[in-house]
């Protein structure tokens, strides 16, 4: 479904973020990418949603090279990928309802669908009671759950979660991972990055280990080895 073909990213100051990285992701897989800070995990994610461009190599989503897409097609590609960030990135002057509705509005769903789906997805992340609150009135864990709700509400083919638990305590971390697993069980591919050993041990899926921009391990039933 996704294939990274010999991708390298060298920043103008000659620092190497990715060094000839190749790997593929099958549909419905739960892939965890682990590595220290600066190993290139985030750069890898940015490549997929065309937020960043590779110096060499290409990234394929199904059979399309994501960096050869027009502006409009890039927008359409992003609608098929749900993204979750470490710092949540909710829109501060929108309520929880509006934050999630925005993703649906952007894809052109009808008001009727939005009114039906948003409460449903909030129920899934157990936040129905905060629907009219603003992000600043929520805790970190709650915000991240809203971000996940936003990512899944458009029913994307893949969820990309970049260090979603980086700012959270163990209880919230566990809860976020459990939600991601549930989403995966319902048939959505999940690509997760983390440097948290506990997370990797909980997930028990395929683990790709990165170091200094290179893939050093790719285990089908992986554990945290660094």
């Amino acid at each position, binding site marked *: 479904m996704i294939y990274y073909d010999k991708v390298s990213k060298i920043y103008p100051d000659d620092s190497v973020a990715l060094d000839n990285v190749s790997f593929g992701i099958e549909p419905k897989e739960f892939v965890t990418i682990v590595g220290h800070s600066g190993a290139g995990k985030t750069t890898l994610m940015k490549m997929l949603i065309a937020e960043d461009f590779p110096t060499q190599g290409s990234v394929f989503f199904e059979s399309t090279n994501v960096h050869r897409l027009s502006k409009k097609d890039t*927008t359409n590609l*992003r609608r098929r990928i749900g993204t979750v960030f470490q710092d949540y*990135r909710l829109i501060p002057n929108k309520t929880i309802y509006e934050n999630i509705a925005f993703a649906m*509005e*952007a894809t052109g769903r009808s008001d009727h669908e939005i009114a039906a789906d948003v409460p449903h997805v909030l129920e899934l992340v157990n936040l129905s009671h905060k629907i009219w609150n603003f992000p600043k009135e929520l805790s970190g864990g709650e915000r991240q759950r809203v971000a996940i709700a936003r990512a899944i509400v458009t029913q994307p083919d893949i969820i990309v979660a970049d260090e979603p638990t980086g700012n959270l305590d163990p209880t919230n971390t566990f809860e976020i991972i459990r939600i991601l697993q549930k989403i995966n069980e319902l048939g959505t591919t999940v690509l997760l990055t983390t440097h948290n050993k506990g997370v990797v041990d909980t997930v028990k899926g395929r683990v790709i280990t990165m170091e200094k921009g290179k893939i050093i391990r790719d285990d089908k039933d992986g554990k945290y080895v660094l």
Partner: protein
Amino acid sequence: MFITSLKRIVRTGFVNFWRNGFLSFAAVVVITLSLCAFGGLIFGSAFGRALLTNVKDKVDVNVYFTLTAQESDILAVVQDIKKLPEVASTTYMSSDQVLANFKTKWQDNAYMMQGLDEIGSNPFPAMLTIKAKDPGQYAGIAHFLQTKNPQDASGIPLIEKVNYEQNKLVIDRLGRIIPAAEKAGSIIALILILVAVIVVWNTIRLIIFTERDEISVMKLVGASNTYIRGPLVVSGIMYGLVSAVITLIVMAVFSYWSTALIFRFAGIQIAADFSTVVNIFSQYFAQNFGQIFIIIIGAGIILGGVSSYIAARKYLKV
């Protein structure tokens, strides 16, 4: 689909305008100040024009004819003068009319009337008041009269005196000051407009700068550029509209009180001398309200909307 998007864009724009509270307030203040500068320019130019017309109107050249000149000869000269392209209007008074005017004016003054009686005959020459279309043209008219030097059949000059030389200094100065004032006025107007546009543009850029993270999130969630930019432009137009309405109210209040203000600052005597100028603001505002309304509202909408549209571009490149 299009209608739904438009509806959502407009609604989001309104909601953001309201929720951004302080930022919206700041933008409205800045745009209002800029629009007030526009309004000031409109009033200023109206005032300047009224003042100049008033002053121009006070300048004229008088031609005094000789006492011996025959009325028919004089009228022939008047006809010639009227034909000059530089002449805007002429007022002719025969010596009888001048005498009648004198008598009405001094009828209560026994000395004056007595003096007039002692002279016996009418001492006043016929007089022609000439107004030129432009103060710079008086020299030409005066020159025409001097070189032509009309005479009657027996060769005696018809014109006793042209008072151009006495008024020359004032006329010359006005001829120089008026075009200079008009030029300076338009340069100041241009600079003010430029400053207003730059200030508004920068304020809106700052507001959109504070929203750059949200813009990039929206992009990554899969929103199209139009869908992100739309609400920003709507908010921008809202800033402009609200500011324009405030500006119009300020202008209305100012023009309502302006007559009293002019009397207070200029003093009653000066104000009375320039009577047409006194009511200029209230009259001008009432008469040209449609035009002023369109200029101010239009400037507000364009300033707010276009600035937002351009300012958002930079952050839409994600």
